[in-house]
């Protein structure tokens, strides 16, 4: 069954090119990027800052359109986002934030509260249902934004540097949560990150992007077995892969420094 699923693509991007205009000048952000997301796969996207990886994620999610190239979505594809700064609605309580997507989808109050409550408990926010996001810590806000995404039962989860704003300890905790949740639900995930550890630990494959204009420089499969834990970071395969990625990225970062 999993073999068959592996062949089913949910998103197919072909030769995506994106040009931005800032202060009247055109900037080439993405240059002919190809990307295919298979059902049930976890893809990590890593690259130097400003390489256009967030832009690629937004194009994949359909909230931004490419300047050139085609993007195909499988039929009636449900997409959910976890944003970099969480983008929680400050005027909604924890419960209402989680329930927002369901409300917009027309799910009735009782049903959406039941499903939201379930996810609030799953991410460990039980007891905070009536709290507003402002009163939560960074880690809790992140859990909330993960619950808000998962509750809509999306086919694809797009995460844009979700741990970017967290301290190291919280980041580790949430990574463990994410591994657990992903292994339970097997959602298709595209994760944009600048942490090599995170990319390997969570992903089935790691895509390394070049400096701007962004292209996919390498696509590396992660051979670590699941279920995974933080201890896999000491596995020799992990270390070897990390070394490969560091070398790839190092060249890119050096080159982008020189061109500046």
């Amino acid at each position, binding site marked *: 069954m999993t073999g068959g699923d592996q062949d089913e693509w949910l998103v197919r991007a072909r030769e995506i090119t994106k040009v931005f205009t800032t202060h009247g000048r055109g900037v080439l952000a993405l240059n002919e990027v190809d990307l295919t997301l298979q059902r049930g796969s976890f893809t990590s996207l890593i690259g130097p800052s400003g390489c256009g990886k967030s832009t690629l994620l937004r194009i994949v999610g359909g909230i931004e359109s490419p300047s050139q190239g085609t993007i195909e979505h499988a039929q009636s594809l449900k997409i959910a986002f976890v944003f970099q700064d969480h983008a929680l609605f400050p005027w909604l309580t924890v419960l209402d934030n989680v329930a927002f997507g369901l409300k917009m989808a027309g799910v009735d109050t009782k049903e959406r509260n039941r499903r939201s409550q379930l996810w609030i408990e799953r991410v460990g926010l039980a007891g905070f249902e009536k709290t507003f996001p402002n*009163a939560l810590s960074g880690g809790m806000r992140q859990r909330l934004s993960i619950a808000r995404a998962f509750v809509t039962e999306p086919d694809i989860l797009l995460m844009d540097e979700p741990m970017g704003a967290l301290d190291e300890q919280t980041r580790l905790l949430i990574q463990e949560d994410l591994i657990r949740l992903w292994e339970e639900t097997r959602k298709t995930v595209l994760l944009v990150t600048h942490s090599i550890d995170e990319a390997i630990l969570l992903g089935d494959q790691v895509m390394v992007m070049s400096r701007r204009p962004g292209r996919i420089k390498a696509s590396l499969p992660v051979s670590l077995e699941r279920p995974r834990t933080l201890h896999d970071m000491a596995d020799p395969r992990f270390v070897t892969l990390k070394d490969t990625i560091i070398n790839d990225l190092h060249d890119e970062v050096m080159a982008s420094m020189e061109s500046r």
Partner: protein
Amino acid sequence: MTEVPLTAIVAKNPIDAELNRSSQRSRRLRQRDLVLGIATPVILLVLWQIASSTGLIDAKIFTPPTTIFSTAITLIHNGVLTHDLGITSLRLVVGFVLGGAAGIVVGILLGIFRTLRAAFSPLFSALYAVPQIAVLPLLLVIFGIGETPKILTVAAVSFFVLEINAMAGVRSIDPQLIEAGRAYGARGRRLFWHVLIPGTLPAIFTGLRVAAALALVVVTATEFVAANSGLGYLVWNSWQLFEPNEMYVGLITIALVGVILTGIVELVARRVMPWSRRNARD
């Protein structure tokens, strides 16, 4: 035998005692602040009373508080104060509500539609720069000496303050929130009601607070020059008749109206934006 409970006490007590002490300390400080806040004006009033009744300051200009109080009672009994208060409140509330509501609607529209903003925003900014009270004579020419020009000056100042604040509010909503709203299926009307409006509310209430204060200034100034009723008229008229005690009553009543109006705005704000209340308390 006594050692076991003793260690338990030692382990628990210092923390509990410290917590106790600190909560007592903060309660004492809060009580002291409250007492100081009330006592200071009371003491000043008493000093004023003593100074003016002993002739230390001129009682004709600085009427003793007790005299002001009895004047107030008289003015309430003969209906002058209640009538002036009623008419001022009417001008204030009607102008504030109508002008404010129009300002909110227009400001939101200007915030959303770039074309409208380009066409009207510079014009409104220029008009706002003209002190509203300066337009009063023109309004008197157009509408005659009725209630309309007085209410319109109040409405004008409320309109401009809210138009500017609501527009800024729409434009300063975190674009990530709009994007998150869209990504979770809020489009068109739903995006407007579920993301745009709640996101603009804090700016709207900032506008309402400012507009409430300015509206009171404008209504008072209008009544100084172009009315024969209202609290502004009461103050102005008592200057012309040299009745400082009535003037004080008028001034105090105007201040009370201001306190009540901003109090109502504040109450509504807390009602409508429970999230910002929690934030403010932290």
